[in-house]
């Protein structure tokens, strides 16, 4: 069992109450305090034969005094006393778990060698086993008064001196060291001693209720109500300290807690919240920590960290108060490791709970700014966009830091998001962004985006399943204003829908799309596009492509004529053209010598003449239509001129070895025709 050295002093009467002997030189202020506190505790006070106890701090020198005062009737004047004071270093006081060893060290002066007896420190054992005390109503009243009115002095009617000492020292020893060393008490007070000495937390007086109130006007009486639930752990611990973990908890947590008695209630609440329920009641714990705050905002660091770790385990489910606590802990933390540990989860959770608050933290300085910045970098973009749905005001600012959100259709559906933000899209992302914009129904950025988007990406975006159909049409209208881009898009070989080709056709004129080299972009597009158009649309597209083929822009006239001829012919024949389509289809048809108004005749003559005169691919002419009689009429038309017959000879040569019997029959027919 370890022991500690305790200094001592003796005060008594020698031409006035004074210090008689001391084992250590006392500072003037401490000496004055001790002089006052060692004197009789009030006029008319009559100590019992065993005296009374006074405990008080010497704050200036960091020591605590536990003193016993006896009446000294042997002295010449009434009211003289002996007081033996044990002066304990605060560090040593923390080691003591029971006051029993201290109480055993008191000695009433006797004989002549007073100076010798009190002139040297005494050794007391530090770790005796703490004794329990009975759970009485008196103890409850005292605990309630002390810790529910923490700024008031508490006074109570004195009982049997030995019992009072037992109770007060048990309460004192239960406290964590920091409170213990500031806790003042006196087991027999005859007056309010706060005037000249030290305000005592707890005083016992012989007076009854009314006298107590008049003698201790600034104190509260420990005589009201029972003990509150919050303080119940104190009672349990006082009764059976050996089987309680409360003292150890108080000792560990109280080390960095200010506020004296004020902290006891919150600490008890913390104890119950963290150790008395499974899982820990974090909401109560946080509320207790808030109550601890008082003047010292950095208190109870160890328990804060403990609560924070518990809260982090379930960051997504914790109450708002607990989450606020996490934020506060983070903001006040100066430990980078702690910041990192808490920050990773807190940042993302903060976004989930309040994107606006997240943003405020983001633009602020301090730990939370760093945490949110890190969280923003780590979060999934769809999580960010989800948070922005109802916080459009910060959408642009967030997008600056996370430009990948610009690739989300949902982002562009946020009303507050400005079209101008599209300018911040990087070149490498512009294709994906186009897809998002189309899906979101955004038209404003179309011009800028189309000009910057790779044609393959653009057609992919335009034809994506998510794209809003009406937006797509408007984008195509914009596209068509850029002829080269339109050509590039059509020439990608990635156009998959006939509807797209039709839409482009409807927004263009037949010669708009340039074809300076290679195959006609329209033709390329037609090869890959699928889908069924309604008859009228099919007729329109055929008329459009016929007009293009008969113009001078396309380098794939034969193929375009082959695509359009039969459809246009049938449309003329059946009179199914709309006025618009008919107008386009007839636009470039030649007038024959008889100025025939038969559009079928004019079509046949014009197409045949274009093949012959421009010497277009004979193979194409031979296969211009699947319709046999129509093919014969084309051959007949060509055979009308010498130039035509020469051209037909090349057609025959191109068809004679065809695998299809029908085509070979056409070659035979040409051969007969040319004989």
């Amino acid at each position, binding site marked *: 069992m370890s022991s500690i050295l305790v200094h001592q002093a003796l005060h008594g*009467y*020698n*031409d*006035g*109450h*004074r210090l008689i002997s001391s084992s250590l030189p006392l500072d*003037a202020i401490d000496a*004055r305090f001790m*002089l*006052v506190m060692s*004197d*009789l*505790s*009030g*006029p*008319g006070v*009559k100590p019992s034969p065993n005296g009374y106890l006074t405990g008080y701090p010497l704050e200036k020198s960091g020591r605590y005094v536990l003193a016993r005062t006896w*009446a000294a*009737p042997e002295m*010449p*004047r*009434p*009211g*003289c006393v002996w007081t033996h004071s044990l002066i304990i270093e605060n560090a040593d006081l923390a080691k003591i778990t029971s006051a029993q060893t201290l109480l055993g060290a008191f000695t009433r002066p006797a004989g002549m060698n007073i100076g010798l007896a009190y002139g040297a420190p005494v050794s007391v054992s530090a770790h005796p086993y703490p004794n329990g005390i009975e759970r009485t109503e008196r103890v409850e009243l005292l605990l309630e008064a002390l810790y529910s009115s923490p700024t008031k002095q508490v006074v109570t009617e004195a009982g049997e001196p030995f019992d009072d000492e037992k109770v007060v020292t048990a309460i004192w020893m239960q406290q964590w060291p920091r409170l213990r060393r500031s806790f003042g008490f006196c087991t027999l007070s005859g*007056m309010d*001693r706060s*005037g*000249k*000495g030290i305000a005592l937390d707890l005083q016992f007086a012989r007076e009854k209720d009314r006298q107590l109130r008049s003698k201790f006007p600034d104190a509260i009486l420990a005589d009201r109500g029972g003990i509150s639930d919050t303080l119940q752990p104190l009672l349990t611990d006082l009764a059976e300290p050996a089987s309680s973990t409360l003292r150890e908890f108080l000792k560990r947590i109280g080390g960095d807690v200010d506020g004296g008695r004020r902290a006891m209630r919150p600490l008890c609440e913390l104890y119950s919240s963290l150790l008395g329920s499974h899982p820990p009641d974090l909401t109560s714990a946080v509320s207790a920590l808030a109550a601890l705050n008082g003047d010292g905002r950095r208190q109870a660091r160890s328990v804060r960290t403990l609560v924070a770790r518990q809260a982090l385990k379930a960051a997504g489910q914790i109450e708002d108060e607990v989450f606020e606590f996490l934020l506060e802990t983070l903001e006040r933390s100066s430990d980078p490791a702690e910041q990192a540990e808490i920050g990773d989860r807190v940042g993302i959770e903060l976004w989930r709970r309040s994107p606006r608050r997240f943003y405020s933290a983001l633009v602020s300085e301090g730990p939370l700014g760093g945490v949110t910045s890190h969280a923003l970098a780590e979060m999934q973009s769809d999580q960010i966009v989800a948070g922005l749905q109802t916080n459009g005001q910060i959408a642009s600012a967030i997008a600056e830091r996370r430009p990948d959100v610009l690739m989300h259709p949902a982002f562009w559906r946020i009303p507050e998001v400005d079209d101008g933000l599209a300018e911040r899209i990087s070149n490498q992302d512009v294709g994906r962004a186009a897809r998002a914009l189309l899906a979101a129904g955004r038209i404003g950025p179309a011009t800028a985006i189309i000009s910057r988007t790779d044609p393959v990406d653009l057609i992919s975006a335009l034809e994506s399943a998510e794209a809003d159909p009406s937006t797509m049409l408007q984008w195509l209208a914009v596209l068509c204003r850029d002829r080269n881009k339109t050509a590039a898009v059509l020439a990608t070989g990635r156009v998959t829908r006939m509807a797209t080709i039709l839409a482009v056709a409807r927004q263009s004129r037949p010669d708009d799309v340039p074809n300076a080299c290679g195959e006609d972009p329209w033709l390329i597009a037609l090869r890959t596009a699928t889908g069924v158009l309604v008859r009228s649309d099919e007729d329109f597209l055929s008329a459009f492509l016929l007009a293009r083929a008969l113009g001078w822009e396309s380098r794939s006239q034969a193929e375009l004529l082959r695509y359009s001829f039969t459809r246009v012919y049938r449309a003329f024949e059946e009179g199914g053209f709309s006025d618009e389509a008919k107008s386009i289809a007839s636009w470039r048809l030649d007038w024959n010598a008889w100025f025939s108004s038969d559009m079928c005749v004019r079509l046949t003559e014009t197409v045949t003449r274009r093949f012959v005169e421009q010497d277009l691919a004979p193979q194409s002419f031979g296969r211009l239509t699947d319709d046999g009689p129509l093919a014969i009429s084309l051959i007949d038309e060509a055979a009308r001129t010498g130039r035509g017959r020469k051209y037909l000879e090349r057609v025959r040569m191109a068809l004679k070895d065809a695998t299809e019997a029908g085509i070979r029959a056409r070659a035979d027919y040409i051969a007969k025709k040319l004989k």
Partner: protein
Amino acid sequence: MSSEIHLSIVGLPSSGKTTLLAALWHMVREPGSITALSFDGLSHGNYEHLNALAKRWRSGNIQQRTQVSGARDVTMRLKDAVGQKVQVSFPDLPGEDFARMWERRELDKGMLETLKAPALVLLVNGDTIKMPAWVVDRIAMSKRLGIGVPEMEPTEWSADLAPTQVKIVDLLQMLMSGDLDIGGRRLALLISAWDKVEGDGLTPAEILESKLPLLHQYLRYGRDPWTWHVWGLSAQGGVYEDPEKNESFPETDKLRDLERPSDRIKVVDGLAVSSDITKPLQWLIS
């Protein structure tokens, strides 16, 4: 028209300050007593303390020493023979505070106002005056007795070895210096326990001159601007009992048998003797 006068009672421990208060409070309120100053009625204040003191005094019980932390403000409303009313206030201070002033050169802030009073009552217990012990006198006496000069170990200095007058003179000088210096003041010097001193057959002034020569010289030659007068005072009138020790003395019984408790009081001014304890106060406030 009434006025408030601030008096202070100063004196070393056991000089009789509390007894003076007890006797004064009793006498100004005793029916039929004729005093220079008499009680004029209660003013705002707590008289519990004064009543307790007076009760002990009347019953012949020795006053409990005033605790170090026990200073009490005391206020009395008095009037003189022509009806002039005064309110006199003075605190009941423990003698240890004055001893500490001298021993440790410390002044409690709470005492500052008290000690700046323009009129002071200074009590010196005539029965416990600690005379200077001159080394030369001691050697001369030893030689005369033929026992030679004794070999003596040096004694460590201690405050309680200092002569009474050394403490008193220094205390008065302190009251006339630094923050406490308010210019000229009146000082009523009361040599208490006069019943123990009067057997010497000297007047109070002669006691002062013979037993406290340093104090006498200090006051007489006016180093500091004190206006002073000396009285002999027996506020108890004899031996009082300590009830805690179950004491019982016939002399005390005799005192209790006096028709009027105020007859125990003796105030000596030169050769004149009276029981009017208010006379020094009247002189102070005149």
